[in-house]
């Protein structure tokens, strides 16, 4: 415990302390989560509407997902012509992983929309753009957010791999702790990563509660509504 307090703001191998590494970790994981989410929505929508797009997109990202992260972290800078220790490499690589997971969720989310509701919105005069933003996107929301939660956890843990190519994150604690055979440092790293994952998960759940109030109420009361239908029948 003393080690944690002594190294909270300074110390560790890059001398930014646990807190500094946590901040690095936060933005290195936040960007791929957000980018993966935003990019997957149009791709998933496209995939849910075209069988060709679906099979091509899903297989390409499935293949990319099977690449070990350390390989991707080497391939990305070579492809993009970036220095190998640039944080952009980590962000690009993790965004690819994020899309690989998120795209499937997004495709499922848009494919499983009630056709009755989509048709009805067309019939009463939503334009295609209004239909997407006011009907399809909100209704896909619960499945999209469930996907985002998976992506969030996996991205937060994957960021640590960046430490092995020299991009600072809480992974530094694993690397350093391993090389000096110092268990406390590794444990501190694990706990810090877990806390970030929990915080991000809570934020996503909270966003869902705020943006999709109907989702909770509907599921809580659907049992009651079913009962009502029984009675009126």
């Amino acid at each position: 415990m003393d080690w944690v307090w002594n190294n909270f703001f300074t110390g560790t191998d890059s001398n930014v302390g646990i807190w500094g590494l946590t901040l690095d970790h936060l933005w290195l994981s936040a960007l791929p989560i957000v980018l993966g989410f935003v990019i997957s929505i149009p791709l998933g929508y496209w995939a849910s509407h075209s069988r060709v797009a679906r099979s091509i997109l899903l297989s390409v990202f499935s293949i990319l997902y099977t690449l070990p992260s350390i390989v991707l972290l080497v391939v990305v800078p070579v492809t993009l012509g970036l220095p190998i220790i640039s944080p952009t490499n980590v962000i690009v690589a993790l965004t690819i992983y994020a899309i690989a997971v998120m795209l499937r969720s997004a495709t499922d989310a848009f494919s499983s929309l009630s056709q009755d509701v989509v048709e009805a919105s067309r019939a009463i005069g939503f334009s295609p753009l209004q239909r997407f933003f006011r009907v399809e996107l909100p209704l896909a929301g619960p499945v999209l957010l469930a996907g985002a939660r998976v992506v969030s956890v996996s991205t937060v843990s994957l960021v640590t791999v960046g430490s092995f190519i020299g991009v600072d994150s809480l992974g530094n604690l694993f690397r350093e702790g391993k090389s000096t055979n110092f268990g406390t440092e590794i444990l501190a790293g694990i706990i810090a990563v877990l806390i970030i994952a929990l915080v991000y998960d809570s934020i996503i759940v909270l966003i869902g509660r705020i943006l999709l109030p109907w989702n909770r109420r509907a599921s809580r009361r659907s049992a009651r509504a079913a009962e009502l239908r029984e009675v009126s029948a």
Partner: protein
Amino acid sequence: MIEFKSVSKLYADGTHAVDNFSVVIPSRKTTVFVGSSGCGKTTLLRMINRMVDPTSGAIEIDGENIANTEPVHLRRGIGYVMQNSGLLPHRTVIDNVATVLFLTKVPKVEAYARANELLDTVGLDRSLAKRYPGELSGGQQQRVGVARGLAANPNILLMDEPFGAVDPIVRIDLQAETMRLQRELDKTIVFVTHDIDEAFLLGDQVLILEKGAKIAQRGTPEEILANPASDFVASFIGADRGKRRLTVDSKVKAKGNDVVLIDAGGYAAGVISAPGGKLAVGSASPKSRSVSNKTSQAGDG
């Protein structure tokens, strides 16, 4: 007035969903398309608001070819009620009713006021306004669907098997409501159903359709019942099975002047009063649904 002029719909696989269909749908009356599933009746309905565009032929509303009207604009001016309500599950009841008003940029206060009135019109308690559709019964959802269809005060209301998925008791209720609304609001209603009893109950004009939306017979319910045009029609309305041919039951005594009627199968179908042994005579316009408005508006003519 809605007019179909030699309308055909050919799908890519070569099936003729609609084959050379022509008919005039008069304003302020209820016209019912009735037929078995796959006969093209829903396709016809969806052509009126350009959910489906015909392969050939034209559809005119008050003499204007709707192919010249932008579909989104056209749809906002035509009420649409479908099976399973098609309500937006993420919007409250009141927002669902006001949807079309929001789309046409009616100010919020005005839209909500109108939506609240519509809840009254369709017989829903205003306390349901803040609920989500998932929290309502099937019958209530269908009423919200009707209210939404009426929100923009359209002259034309399209109803696609709106009561197909509710239980029989609620359905009878909703049918009665539809007749009341038609009496009060005087809309041009085009109604699609596969239920001939519903068609006869609601229709001023009934079109019995065969495959390819071929008109087997068109007329008032009375005309069709009195003179089925073909064996197909006779079979469809149940005349050939004797379901519509009623005779007086000689064995059972009902109270007062009533006698019990049975169909050809020997099943009880109803009672009729027969004072002094003579059957009561009625006139064949019992519904008095269409009381014409004085002002003329689109949908007339």
